[in-house]
């Protein structure tokens, strides 16, 4: 499968590549292929009716919709946070920078629990939203809030290195030629950051799409209203409907693999842009 192109004096190629491939097959590829094999036991009609069931379609809408909007919020605020962290000086900056990764390090179940506590009727923020006439916990809005939390670091961490490495000369040139700060930002800085922003957005979106732990606590899991696709997979498993669960899993896998390929293409694009 993997042939070496040229002889190298370094030892250990055969043993490391063999181990890598076998471990990858055993842990990842063979188990993943089980999903596609399982769906092949269904007829096309069964598969189609499972993945287009009204309750499932409602879950797609929520999963894809809330993930996209949450990723967009993270795109806007992520850029602002990155800008502030890279360009400005203020006390506690290093601490804030480190804390941005909290959603990566905090187990999702804990995040779900904490957000539910805050946004429940008597919670720190929930009491105010109730007075304003809307509730977050046990509503689609809660799903959205949880997905903002778990996707928060992606845009910051993908844009940060690009913004740090950006040459100041371009902005200086634009300014000296009479461009306003706003014009410089939209014409010079933003196009430069665009590939990284898009990568961060896609990563946050893909992560949100598959998220389960933080959402189940805050969503309340009401059929047709606050159910996300991963939850439906679990529900079907609990009813021993393995084929049905797998059919939904295949839809989600195809969606996330497509996004993964897009992200890879994006990263190659942004790399070729920076090296040119």
């Amino acid at each position: 499968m993997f042939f070496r192109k040229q002889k190298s004096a370094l030892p250990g190629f055969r043993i490391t590549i063999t181990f890598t491939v076998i471990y990858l097959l055993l842990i990842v590829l063979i188990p993943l292929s089980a999903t596609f094999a399982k769906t092949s036991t269904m007829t096309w009609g069964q598969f189609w009716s499972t993945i287009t069931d009204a309750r499932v379609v409602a879950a797609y809408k929520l999963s894809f919709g809330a993930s996209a909007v949450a990723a967009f919020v993270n795109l806007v605020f992520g850029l602002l946070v990155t800008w502030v962290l890279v360009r400005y000086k203020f006390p506690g900056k290093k601490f804030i920078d480190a804390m941005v990764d909290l959603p990566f390090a905090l187990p999702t179940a804990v995040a779900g629990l904490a957000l539910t506590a805050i946004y429940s009727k008597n919670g720190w923020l929930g009491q105010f939203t109730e007075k304003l006439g809307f509730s977050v916990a046990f509503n689609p809005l809660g799903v959205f809030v949880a997905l903002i939390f778990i996707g928060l670091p992606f845009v910051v961490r993908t844009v940060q290195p690009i913004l740090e490495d950006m040459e100041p000369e371009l902005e200086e040139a634009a300014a000296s030629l009479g461009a306003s700060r706003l014009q410089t930002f939209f014409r010079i800085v933003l196009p430069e950051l665009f590939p990284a922003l898009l990568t961060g957005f896609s990563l946050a979106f893909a992560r949100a799409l598959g998220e389960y732990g933080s959402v189940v606590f805050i969503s309340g899991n009401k059929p047709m209203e606050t159910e996300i696709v991963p939850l439906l997979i679990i529900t079907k498993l609990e009813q021993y409907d393995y084929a049905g669960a797998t059919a939904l899993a295949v839809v989600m896998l195809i969606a996330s693999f497509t996004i993964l390929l897009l992200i890879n293409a994006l990263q190659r694009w942004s790399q070729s842009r920076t090296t040119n």
Partner: protein
Amino acid sequence: MAGFVSKLGRPSRSPHRSTTEARWLQWIFIGIAMLFLGLFLFVPLASVFAEALRKGLGAYFESFKEPDAISAIKLTLTAAAIAVPLNMVFGVAAAWAIAKFEFRGKNALITLIDLPFAVSPVISGLIYVLMFGAQGWLGPWVQEHDIKIMFAVPGIVLATVFVTFPFVARELIPLMQAQGKDEELAALTLGASGWQTFWRITLPKIKWGLLYGVILCNARAMGEFGAVSVVSGHIRGETNTIPLHVEILYNEYNFVAAFAVASLLTLLALLTLALKSLVEWRAHKDQQEEPVHL
């Protein structure tokens, strides 16, 4: 895609620019950014401890004395103790093959290694049910030989290995690619064996990257919820990890205990972030002290 994005090996730049915003505008931007982070990071963080301590320290510590809590902590430590070393060895082996040799299919291999990050945690659990469950591919064989994998500890370990699979590899691959292989070749020419070269030359060069990967891998291994939830079967005192124990307590309306146990995981997360910053700082320092190679 649950990955941390690595900050190792990145030079820092002075923030001073001749083109910048007015100071008052800067403070408005800083204010909005902090409000956003406060709302979505710091308020949830504080609420975990506030809820856990609602009935005082006595009730807080009582939550950890429960036998179910102790067995959940033991199971989580066991799963991490198996998954992390396995993925560490894999990460080093994969990075060695990918970074030090040229072969066809390399880019495909790198993409495949990243796959587990693209898979929903729920699906990461599901695939092992389809393999080893009663109706699974190997289900009948497993039952015949009286091996318990699903709804038992091996299933939890497998799911944990899957979700933490890429952490060390994706940290080491770019690092070792950037380092090249000249120093290793020099050592070999001077008569060192392959192992000696690895231990004396390669390992010291990659130690911070390796440690970084291991820290992140461990955090995920101990905190995983979705994947483990699917394969665990939720048998109290037997197949519950710490995050699953938190869920059970919460569903039983035992909020103080749920948040107390959750605060343990939160402390682990804060420790992870602290260690991560420390490793970044050390790696950065080493990089600056190292003489420039031409």
